[in-house]
């Protein structure tokens, strides 16, 4: 012991007294922006949604975790609509079986239809989406056309029972959960549609956080009364449902090997990381290693994050994994992962080295300098300035609503994080938001069809925030809607390359949220593009000399 002390004596004992002080703090030390704001923070006209998380002194852990938001064109009118997941009523007297009073209008989930003038109309009730179920505290949303009828369906996750709403194509939805067999149980968080067996029908993956209920809630932090860290509660498994193609799903969690691994899963994203033609699944776990489920192509998965280098930091440390982006940030054609985490960690970037291997490259990409102070939730890798490189956006806020009392250097509300991608290295950008937020969900898409990617954030206890992209640099774009024929109609799982950039078709990722399913490519100064698509069916399709600055629907050839 003495020898150790002696060897380390030069590490200024005075500076090490008491704590390991690597405490980050946000706004007062925020670095200056490097460029003018790309976004303008706007309220959503006609949207009166408030995310009711109902915080109590009992610090029920669910209170700090919602809620999701989706951009979808539910009525196929070419305008993106918005769906918000609400929390529910919680009181200090709440106990199991919980009743969250979701029948009260304040606690409804909400669907807002976008009007031609950019305003929104609340169509929740008319669409048949007002009954969220009193036993359900809402968390996330997934969007996908599971029955290939051309209309996007909505899956809502909850603490409680999950709900699948079938889009009837006439502006209404029907709760088909019971028939579909996807209610699940426990605490579901993020979810996403994918076609893991390439049979042309979208399957469904649901993350579950932990074994928790109001009767077994715990309060941590001593006199400070804080939400407990995840390790206090038992881990649990995720759910995978296979779409039988007849409107019903089979729970294949066990058969597929997914439930063989218990974790504390919050986020999920999909991509074919090893190019074998089958969609793989990356799950962000809170306070532990991350999971990478490799699709074996025979209906089973093998969790291989540790062997692949995608489980831990390069110091072998676990992560407070929350949101995920699973796209190719460095234009090498292979999808990489970015996981949002808590302060004293750094947003984790797992670079896809090829051959099924990943390396932790947060520091090389510049995220060490930029994100050691941050708590991240919803996340997207999108080309906001259309320069041909995917930028990084994160919805931020600490998980503890009283964190300032415990550690003055941390903040509950934070500014969103924008980092511009400069040839694979990130530089701080200006999100355009000047008031710190308790942001959670984030969805990405071109909400006003102007060729630039916008963002909608949810905020705990507050209204959503629209970040309208008004970047004016003359760069060109291309927006592609996939229309699968042999593959699933949404084309989820397709690998699309445009002028050397690659996107993996999905609406899943971020945190609890679902993105515009259109694939957006910034083309910089290119006025035409070459598009290469590898469909989930295995079909390869190439389109050459495609003019820039258009919204293009590409239909999968019906014969290979």
């Amino acid at each position, binding site marked *: *012991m*003495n020898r150790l002390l002696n*060897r*380390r004596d*030069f*590490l*200024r004992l*005075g*500076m090490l*007294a*008491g*704590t*390991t*002080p*690597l*405490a*980050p*703090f946000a706004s*007062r*030390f925020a*670095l200056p922006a490097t460029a003018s704001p790309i976004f303008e923070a706007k309220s959503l006209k006609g949207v009166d949604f408030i995310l009711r998380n109902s915080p109590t002194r009992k610090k029920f852990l669910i209170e700090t975790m919602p809620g999701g938001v989706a951009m979808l064109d539910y009525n196929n009118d070419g305008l993106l609509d918005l769906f918000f997941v609400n929390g529910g009523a919680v009181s200090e007297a709440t106990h199991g079986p919980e009743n969250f009073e979701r029948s009260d209008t304040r606690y409804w989930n909400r669907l807002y239809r976008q009007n031609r003038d950019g305003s929104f109309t609340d169509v929740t009730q008319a669409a048949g989406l007002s009954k969220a179920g009193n036993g359900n505290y809402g968390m996330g949303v997934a969007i996908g056309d599971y029955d290939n009828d051309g209309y996007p369906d909505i899956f809502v996750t909850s603490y409680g029972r999950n709900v699948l709403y079938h889009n009837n194509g006439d502006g209404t939805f029907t709760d088909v959960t019971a028939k579909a067999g996807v209610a699940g149980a426990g605490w579901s968080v993020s979810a996403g549609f994918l076609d893991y067996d390439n049979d042309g029908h979208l399957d469904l993956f649901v993350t579950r956080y932990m074994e928790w209920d109001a009767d077994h809630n715990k309060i941590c932090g001593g006199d400070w009364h804080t939400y407990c860290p995840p390790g206090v509660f038992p881990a649990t498994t995720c759910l995978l449902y296979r779409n039988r193609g007849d409107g019903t799903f089979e729970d294949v969690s066990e058969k597929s090997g997914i439930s063989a691994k218990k974790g504390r899963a919050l986020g999920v994203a999909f991509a074919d990381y090893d190019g074998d033609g089958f969609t793989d699944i990356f799950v962000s776990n809170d306070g*532990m*290693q991350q999971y990478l489920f490799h699709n074996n192509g025979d209906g089973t998965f093998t969790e291989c994050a*540790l*062997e692949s*280098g995608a489980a*831990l*930091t*390069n*110091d*072998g*440390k*676990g*992560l*407070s994994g929350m949101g995920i982006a699973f796209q190719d940030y460095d234009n090498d054609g292979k999808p990489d992962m970015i996981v949002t*985490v808590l302060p*004293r*960690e750094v947003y984790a970037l797992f670079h896809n080295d090829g051959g099924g*291997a990943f*390396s932790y490259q947060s*520091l*090389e*990409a*510049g995220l*060490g*300098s930029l994100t*050691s*102070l941050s708590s991240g939730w919803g996340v997207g890798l999108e080309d906001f300035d259309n320069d041909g490189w995917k930028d990084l956006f994160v919805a931020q806020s600490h998980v503890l609503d009283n964190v300032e009392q415990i*550690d*003055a*250097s941390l903040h509950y509300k934070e500014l969103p994080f924008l980092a511009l991608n400069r040839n694979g*290295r990130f530089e701080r950008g200006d999100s355009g938001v000047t008031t710190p937020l308790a942001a959670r969900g984030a969805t990405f898409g071109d909400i006003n069809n102007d060729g630039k990617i916008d963002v909608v954030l949810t905020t705990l206890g507050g209204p959503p925030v629209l970040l309208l992209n008004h970047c004016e640099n003359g760069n060109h774009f291309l927006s592609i809607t996939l229309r699968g024929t042999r593959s699933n109609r949404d084309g989820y799982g397709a690998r699309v390359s445009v002028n050397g950039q690659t996107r993996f078709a999905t609406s899943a990722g971020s945190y609890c949220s679902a993105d515009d399913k259109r694939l957006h490519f910034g083309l910089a100064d290119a006025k035409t593009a070459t598009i290469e698509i590898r469909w989930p069916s295995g079909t390869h399709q190439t389109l050459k000399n495609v003019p820039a600055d258009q919204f293009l629907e590409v239909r999968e050839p019906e014969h290979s």
Partner: protein
Amino acid sequence: MITALLYLALALQNVSAEGAQHMQAGVEAHKQGKFDVAIAEFRKATQTDPNLAEAYLDLGEVLQQTHDYKDAVTALKKAVELNPDLDPAHLQLGFALLQQGYAEEAIPHLERVHAVAALGIAQLETGRYEAAVANFSAALAANPGNSDLLYYLGRASGLLSKRSIDSLMEADPDSARAHEAMGENYYVLRQMPQAEKEYGAALQQRPDLPGLHLEMGMVYAAAGQLDKAEDAFRAEAKLEPGSAEAAYRLGDVLLQEGKTREALPELRRANELQPDMPETLYSLGKAASLEGDAALAEKSWLRVIEMEKNTALAAQSHFGLAALYRKEGKTSQAQQQMQEFQKLQSTIGPPRSE
């Protein structure tokens, strides 16, 4: 009751037969754990032979054992009065007085018998921190790793440090050193803006004061301002080219900034200045690995493992080696390192982010 046995023989030389009987009976009763009987017998011995210091010593010792410190002190004082050279009586009296909170009064008795640990406690309680630190250090040399002594040494050192700083503040509150001390306090309290302000004031007065830039750099690093931390560590490294810590801190922050090419020579330098510093070696391995110098990475991490064996740094080194071997296609070695990593994780817990 070794004392009683030892001194019984001596006492018998001048003791009456009846007194000797009571002493003998007291010793036997004490041996059997019959403290009440022992006390009664020793009392009788003091009544039979009122000048027998050893009888009072034994009585005082047993009274102490039964937590009757007040009567113990009375008896032990009488023993010392009767025989000022009776060291065991001084020792017991010192203990009893200390136990009762009479630290000042205990000191001369403890000093006389060189009871350094107890003396340190008495000095700590009477504000003689410097002497207490010296005595606890001496006691620790005889009992390395003793948790009580380590605690007391830490406490005495802390109080000594506080008193020095208080004196500094009183004597020259606007001096560079006063600002530096304030900066250190704010840093520990994680109040970084205030710490930055204080260190800034210190640096304004004495920019060439060794350590100041380093401390400022640590404030910036803790605040996530790595570019400013880098500047501060560079300034320190320039001021103190022989400081291994300055080189290590600079190398490490460069590593965090993703500037691995610049980090590597700094970490090499730190390792040359002070070899076998596990933290330096770990970071050196990391920088070397990122820069493609697999041999240096392997050497550095293996050395960490050799020195640390089962610490978090050792686990991290196993993890780094696993990745290194995997990249080199050395699958079985990679698996072996990963197993070692996992084994350590299960024993010491998973490495945590700072």
